[in-house]
């Protein structure tokens, strides 16, 4: 099987990027290996760890499970695009202050996931631990833990991640 190449245009962290890529290329590999955007991490390449989480047209997704060719003209925000110049995003700042990481490899995914999660909660999406499926979401620690459980952290920084997010959420 020979590679099939197509042209794709992506808007990544505010910059328009055009590239010709192998149709087998995941969005994650397109970002990391073709565009040099290495903020999103590859932890499992199977959508099982969440390290590659980005915001794709505003929603959190595992970029390792998305083929780049299927997302022509997509708007992508990675962890590299969250800060405003030298001013960190409130979640980035909170993660540092609460030491919500150790090795830092899951962190870009955790933070992008948290951004997406806060939007979901704001929109009233319930989770598996929500007592009331239609009431406004109150982001208790249990809600945050549940909603962030798609992002694994082997260093075991969950006890810092939850308060880091809670402080921004409340």
């Amino acid at each position, binding site marked *: 099987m020979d590679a099939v190449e197509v042209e794709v245009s992506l808007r990544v962290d505010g910059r328009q990027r055009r590239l010709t890529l192998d149709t087998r290329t995941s969005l994650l590999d397109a970002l990391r290996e073709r565009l040099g955007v290495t*903020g999103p991490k590859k932890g499992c*390449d199977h959508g*099982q*760890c969440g390290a590659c989480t980005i915001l794709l047209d505003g929603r959190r997704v595992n970029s390792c499970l998305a083929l780049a060719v299927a997302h022509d003209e997509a708007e992508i925000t990675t962890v590299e695009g969250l800060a405003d110049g030298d001013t960190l995003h409130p979640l980035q700042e909170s993660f540092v202050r609460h030491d919500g*990481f150790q090795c830092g490899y899951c962190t870009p995914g955790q933070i992008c996931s948290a951004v997406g999660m806060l939007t979901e909660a704001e929109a009233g999406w319930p989770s598996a631990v929500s007592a009331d499926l239609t009431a406004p979401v109150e982001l208790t620690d249990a809600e945050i833990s549940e909603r962030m459980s798609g992002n694994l952290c082997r260093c075991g920084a969950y*006890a810092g991640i939850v308060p880091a997010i809670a402080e921004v959420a409340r």
Partner: protein
Amino acid sequence: MTTTEQRLTPRAMGVPLDRLDGPAKVTGTARYAFEHPQTQPLYLHPVQATVAAGRITAIETGAAEAVPGVLAVLTHLNAPRLADTSDGELAILQSGGVAFRGQIIGGVVATSPETARHAASLVRTAYDEQPHDVVLRAGHEGLYAPDSVNGGYDTDQVQGDVEAALASADVTVDQTYTTPTLHNNPMEPHSTIAVWDDGQLTLYDSTQGVHMVRKSVAPLFGLDPEQVRVISPHVGGGFGSKGNAHAHVVLAAMAARQLPGRPVKLALTRQQMFFLAGYRTPTLQRVRLGADRDGRFSAISVEAISQTARIKEFTEQTAVAARMMYAAPNRRTTHRVTRLDVPVPSWMRAPGECPGMFAAEVAMDELAEACGLDPVELRVRNEPETDPETGHPFSSRNLVACLREGARRIGWERRDPTPGARRENGALVGLGVSASVYPVFRMPGSAARVRAEAGGRYTVSIGAADLGTGTWTALTQIAADALEVPVEHVDLRIGDTALPPATVAGGSSGITCWGSAIVHAARELRGQHGRSPAEGAEAVGETGDNPDTERYAMYAFGAQFAEVRVDADTGEVRAPRLVGVFAAGRIINPKTARSQLLGGMTMGLSMALYEQSHVDPSIGQVANHDFAEYHIATNADIGSLDVSWLDEDDPHVNAMGSKGIGEIGIVGTAAAVANAAYNATGVRIRDLPVTLDAFLS
């Protein structure tokens, strides 16, 4: 006689400084091994053996070579001959022999990762397959006594007469405990970029020790160490699995040598990590305890067995903690290992102590019940006055204080010693305790350089590693105190063999070894150049010997408590509350230290309830080799974690007064959980992990 090392006055040490590498990590700009920018990189995908034992009789690479974009296919037929094949794990592609399923038998280099991976799938191999044996079991015919066990410890130790003491003891426990195969699974897969240029090999590697990698790799290729440079500023976790160079690093270097000047990138897939990146051996431990009616030990015996690979011996030092933990005049600890057709086991967070203290501390719980004693009190009664193994005094030992404080924090007085007595909201609720311990290791071989810069600044250089351990921050704090300057005046450099040599980040020894070298370099600089050195003035210091190492037994201690809830109908087991109290000398940075201990306990909880690599004996490999099926604790699996430590002033360990905290957090967690599960239900768990089926029968 040399006196105790002069102690450092803490100014920056003890301050909960935010992680200095934090902004780079939260913005995604910290560079991990695979992310160092390269021009026209090539991608390497390993080819792995699909049998567990045998020999390759034919390997067909034509289809792979025909794929456009493929530059090379390496096999044992065309790979470079290695100059040194003494390490069986690293000596890949030197013959057609297969020692375990998943072993590297080739590699494909191509211009894109997609092409390399696809082409690797086209390599066809025929084998003369042999029967394999991949299951460790008691009484395995291959069990033998190794010359020594990991860490250089004696294989066996015997004091007194255990059999006689057990025969005459009022109360005995005699049980076998097992821990399963466990995989380290750092979030960052093991990754290497290799560049071979003008006889110089550069490796961007995800490693716990750049100098260790250089020392391992250089002789394989007949290179002088100076011809190999290893760079690793940020490491996405390791937990021991990046403490040794593994075979993929050799494969990357081989490919780079075949394609000089071209950067060759290799990242193991998550699945490949279950074959190629080390793991914790399963253990079987027969533990026998003998005591009088008051719970005072007369005998402790631990017989531990574990597995290793055909091609390399690694023996987990499972029983060593039993040599020093509690007083008993009669003691025997033995290790036996057997070679199986399995991947090479290696270090995983607290090798030895972690599985060993699971068995011993559950046995303690059993003995406490047999004596009708409170489990905390049993441990207090068996506190030794001096180290039972060496007779030396402890440099400091605050286990009892940790137990008392932990008991207070968990509400131990509310624990009903009768199993199954407490029921709340449909759950059986119990409390359990375990002790924790980890040695203070000090290895020779680290050096640091301190250089005076303009404006009262200093550059401190050492080839140390930060795998999330907080090294960037803690070493900066130590350097600041050693130089008596603010932390803002110190620029630390680590993670590069171009810097002075550093020992591997293992055995919780980083701060002791690297910190001591920095302190000595700073004192040397001040001694030679005074308070206001000229710009460019430099001094080098080494870790050096600590004479107190020969006079004192040095260990960190801790106590862990767990609350476990078992659903009375479904058996679902959770640990909503863990308490850990530690006595680990001076804490250099309370913020990063807390994370280290939390992280250890979280991994311990994960070990207690979830983790197990299931080996399929029919095909000879771990079947659940990804994160969907090898479960590690998720965010929602963690309840309340209460971590604290005692202010411990130990004048003997090193100039900082620190003992090391990377591993002690995982030691004892699983036992505390299993003991709490017993208190909740009356079901004694001797085999990890603790799963709901145990409570349904």
